[in-house]
C-alpha cells in the first residue's frame, strides 16, 4: 500500500514538474521566436533611425510587433502555473 501512495504522490509531483517545464518551454521558445523576428526588424529599424530621426516612432512600432509572440508564451505559462 505504501508503495502505491508513494506512486500517487510522485505522479502529482511530476505533474507539477511537467507543468513548470511546459511553462519554461512556452516562454523560452516563444522568446526565441520573438528574438529571431526582432533580429531583422531591429537592425533595419536602427539603420532607418540613423538615417532619419523622424523614423523613430515607426521603427519602434515595427520592432515591437513580434513581441506579441513572447507575451502569448508568457500568458500560456501563467495559465499553466496558476
Amino acid at each position, binding site marked *: 500500500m505504501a508503495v502505491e501512495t508513494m506512486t500517487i504522490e510522485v505522479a502529482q509531483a511530476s505533474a507539477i514538474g511537467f507543468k513548470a517545464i511546459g511553462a519554461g518551454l512556452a516562454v523560452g521558445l516563444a522568446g526565441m521566436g520573438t528574438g529571431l523576428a526582432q533580429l531583422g526588424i531591429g537592425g533595419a529599424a536602427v539603420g532607418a533611425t540613423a538615417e532619419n530621426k523622424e523614423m523613430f516612432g515607426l521603427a*519602434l*512600432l515595427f520592432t515591437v*510587433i513580434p*513581441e506579441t509572440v513572447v*507575451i502569448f508564451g508568457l500568458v500560456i505559462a501563467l495559465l499553466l502555473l496558476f
Partner: protein
Amino acid sequence: MFEPQTMSKLLIAASKDQLEAVVRELYRHNLFHIEDFVESDAQGLEGCKIGMPLPGASESSSDLVRIRSIENTYGVSSKGMDTDERKMPTSEVRQRIERELQAIEDEAAGFADEKITLENTIRDYETRITELKPYTLFPANLADLKGFENFVVLAGLVPAHVSLSVPNEMFITAYEKSNLLIAVVPRENAEEAEKDLFEAGFQPIPVPDENGTAGERTVWYTHEITRLEGDLKVVSGRISAQKEKNATFLVACDELLTAEVERAEAPLRFATTEETFVAEGWVPADMVAALTSDLQSATGGKVFVSEVEFDPIEEAVPVEYHNPDFSKPTEMLMDIYSRPQYGEFDPTILVSIVFPIFFGFILGDVGYGIILLALGYYLRKFLKDDAGQKLLDVFRNASISSIIFGLIYSECLGFALPWSPIGINRHLNIGSHASGHGPDAVLMLVLTAWIGILHITLGRMLHMYNAANMMKPGRHRSKVIFGQLGWILVMWGILLMLWSLFEMPLMPVLAGYPAVFVGINGFGVAGAVLLLVGIIGIGQDSMLELMELPTVISHVLSYTRLAAVGLSSVAIAMVTNYIAIELIIEPQLANLSIIGIVIILIGIVIFLIGHILNTALGIMGGGLHSIRLHYVEFFTKFYKGGGKKYEPFGKLRKFTED
C-alpha cells in the same frame, strides 16, 4: 479638445514700403505660419516673384557667424542657459555689439589659438616619447648615432640575434617580444649588411633627432607635457572665466541677430510685384482679430488682411495641438508616432489618461514608483529642452500611477505592505512567507482582456467618427463606417459565442441556457449572427481586410501583456528579495562572524543589483508595452496622423527685450 486647434488662412497684402513693419509685427506675435510662395505653383498669384531680402541681411548674418564662432570657442549655448536672468534691452545689445564685439572676438581667437598651440605641442611631445621608447634601452647619446661620413647606422627590430658578414659594431638587446638592434657598418658595406638584416626579418626604426640618451629625453618630454598641461588648465580656466563674463551677452546677441536675419529673409517666402507684396499663411482662428488689428496699427492702416476660405481635407493645414494643460506633455508621445491631421480626432487626452494607468497596472509598486519619481526629478537637471521636459512630465505621471497601483496591490520592492491587496493579488508564492493561493493570474488575464476589448471597440468607434467627420458624404464614406461597425460586430459576436459556451470569471455567464440549434443556445446563435453580419460589413468595405480577421483575437489577447509583464516584474523583485535576504543575509545574521559580514555585504550588493535591473526592466516593460498597446493596437484602429507641424514665424525672446 479632442481636435487640433482651428486654423484660419490669412492673406496679408500691402505696398512694399510697409514690408519691414509687417514682418516685424508678424515676428513679434509668433503666430503666423508662413505658407512658402512657389513661383511655379502660384495659384491666383500668377506673375508674382519671390521677394528680395530686407536691407541689412548680409551684415546681420556675418555678425551672427562671428558670434556663433565665439560661442563655439567658449562652449556657450542658449539651450543650457537659464531664462530667469534679467533680459537685456536690444538697444544695449546693439551698442555693445558696436563697442565690444571686436575685442571679445579677438580675445576668443587668442584663447583658441593658445589652446590649439598647447594641445598640438603636447600631442607632438607624446609622439616623440613613443618614438624614443625603443631607444630607452640604448645607454649612449642618440646624437652619437648621427652625422657619420664613412659609416652607416642601421637601427630597428629583429626577431632573433643576427650576425653580419661585413665588419660591424653592433648593439643588440631584447625589446618587448623582439630585439632592438643598432649596427654601425662601413658605408661601402652598407648594402650587404642591409641585405643580411632584411633576410633576418629586420624592421628599421628611424633614430630620433635628439641630443642625449633616450631615457633623459623621455624624462624631459614628460616634464614638459606636465608643465604644458598645467598651462592648458590655466588657459581653460581663463576661457571659462571669460565664458562666465560674456555668456549672457553672447546669447543675447545670438538671439537678436538670429531674429534680424530671420526677419530680413522672410520676404524670400512672400509673393511680390514691383510695388506690393502678398504673404499667405495660417493663424489659430481665435488669434486672427488680435493679429489683424495689431498689423493695422503697426502700418497705420496701410495693410490689407483677409481671411481666405480653404478646404480642410485637400490643403495641408499646419496642425497645432489644442489640449488641456494636463495632456500637453503627452503631445510628445503623439509626435513620436505622428501628429494628427487637421480635423482628425486627436487622441492625446485619451493617451494622457490611459498611458499612466497601463504603466501603473504593469509596474504597480510603491518602491519602484518612488525611485522613478526621484529619478525623473534628478534628470530634470540634464534634459532642459522642451521635448525632454515633456518626457519627464509623462514619466512623472506614470510614476505616480505606479505608486497608486502599488498601494492597491500592496507591494513595495516586492515586499508586501501591511495590508492585503485590494481586488487583485499579485503576490507569488516565493520564499518562506509564501501563503495563500498565489496570484490571481486568471482574474488579471480576463480583466486585461476586457481592457483590450473596450479599448479596441473605442478605437473602431473613433474610426467611424473620423470617417463621418473627415470624408465627403457618399457611398465610400458609408462603406468605411459599415466596415468599422463590422469589426465591432465580429468582436462582440465572438464574445457572445464564447460566453454561451464557457463560464469565465468577470465575464457574463450565458452558458447553461437551453440549446436552440445544434447544441448552441440562443446567445450563441445571436453571436454567430453578429459575426456573420460583421464579416459581411468588413467584406463590403474591402475583401482584403478579411485576411486580418484573426487580429480580432490576437489584438485583444495582446492586452494580456498588462498582466503578464507585471507579474514577471513582481516575480523578479520577489526572487531578488528571496535570494538576497532569506538565502544570504538572514542565515548570517543568526550567528555573526567576520566572514558573515562580508557575505552580508555581498547579499546587499545582490539586492541592489537585482532591484536596479528590475527598475530598468520596469521602465522598459511599463513604458514600452503601454505605449506599444497604444501605437499598435489602439492607433491602428482609427488614427491616420501625418499632420504638418504648426511652426509660426517668430520666436519667443528669452534673453532680450525692446
